[in-house]
């Protein structure tokens, strides 16, 4: 399947979360914080901490760790 990472088309395997998919591409940094512009990545890995939030299909603040990849998905990360 194909997904769009910051607008760029990339191949992906199914049955994986957005978070682990990005980590395997060595994308440790997923966003910058609101106040101090500090980099953040996955922390709890199980949907508890909201540190790995990214924009998916235009909707902000989606947890990368518990969102499964879908064909055609558009993911925006800030690094």
């Amino acid at each position: 399947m194909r997904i769009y990472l910051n607008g760029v088309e990339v191949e992906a395997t199914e049955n994986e979360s957005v978070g682990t998919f990005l980590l395997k591409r060595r994308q440790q940094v997923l966003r910058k914080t609101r106040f101090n512009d500090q980099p953040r990545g996955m922390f709890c890995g199980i949907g508890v901490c909201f540190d790995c939030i990214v924009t998916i299909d235009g909707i902000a603040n989606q947890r990368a760790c518990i969102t499964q990849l879908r064909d055609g998905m558009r993911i925006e990360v800030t690094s």
Partner: protein
Amino acid sequence: MSRTIIVGGGPAGMSAAVEIARAGGDAIIIDSNPRLGGQYWRHGPVAEFSYDGERFVALQAEINNHPSIEVRASTQVWRASYQDGVATLWLNDGTSLTGETLLIATGAYDRSLPFPGWDLPGSMTAGGAQAILKASGALLGRSVFVAGTGPFLLPVAASLVEAGVKVLGVLEANRVNGWVNHLGAVDVRKMKDAVRYFKILSAAKVPIRMGYAIIEARGDGRIEEVVIAKVDRNFTVKPGTVEVHKCDAIATGWGFTPDLTIAHSLGVSTDVHPIDRSVVIHVDAFQETSQYGIFAAGESTGVGGVDLALIEGRIAGIAIAVQRGLISTVEAKNRSVGLASERSKIRKFANALLSVYKIREGWRSWLNPETILCRCEEVTFKQVRNVVHDLGASDVRTAKLLSRCGMGMCQARVCGRMVADVIGAEIGAPATDDELRGIHNRPIAHPISLQTLADQGQ
């Protein structure tokens, strides 16, 4: 209405569902994960486990074979209520469920302690590092330290080694003497587990250092090195023991926090655990809570591991079958032989572990004024101190409102307890039981879209 709602498809929820179905009842399991198994049996599309997978495979097969059990995966409960003997759950797919019988099997998540740099990318919880590995073989880094306290650090380090990660050290902050003997006292399985982990770690020449902690992580935009140090029995850094090591990730864990969000919304009574002061659901001998028809099993009633969760789930499932009139109390006794004594044996052992692997107060000495305590709202240690000393906050809630600590998206799941402890120390009076309970009050359990809200309001 006669169907039992089970919130959480981990070991406790699965074993309860099976007992209910065996008695001829119906159950629906709701889980936010795409697959059954919970954190312990988290797995990818194929149910493959390096260890202890047989029990999962057997439970899953029985669940699949019972048409009376429905599994609704990838589904989150965003709101729960209990009124006039009926529980209602609102789900993120826009639907809701009601039932007179409900089992809370929501499990637990890692308890975290802050230190300078714990918010850098590359810093994960021990459970998180394990979860991403189990679910998809993802690695948090290539050369890592595993640190914190508790027996859980060993399986995490062992599975990272097996996955090809260079584990530079396992740092256990407590000094633990003879804990393997404790384990042996409970059952052979635990003993075998421990031996297996030690074998894997020693074959990979991973140093296990007792009385050590990560006190700082540093790097430009991601973890590049960590500062580790020897700590005393109170977790205070021993002068002259500081070492700096290169690494690209760390996994830290300090035990677990029971997930009580749904329980709190259902209004069940809770206890503050006498050993670690974690808030746990109060249950009777049949795993029933203070609310009639609402049961609880597994880590949400007190952290005790997979074996305890499985037994509590079975006891709850059998008790639910009796309450629903599916089996007689005599039949229930036949089905419960040995369960209660096994439960108390494991719980006793779990409490012994909690005492050994306690979080000691000296951890606060690792903080510097700029250390982030609340990751969501980026509130620093200095800011929390200021609301106590300059603005006169004299209780946890006021300090939280003035500093915004714990008011971000995670709703204090990560920092709530630790901030309560910091504030308590600054005020000079530890957080009260009710203040600790208040941390778990989250009327909206998970964020939902306005569309979902509007749809369900109709």
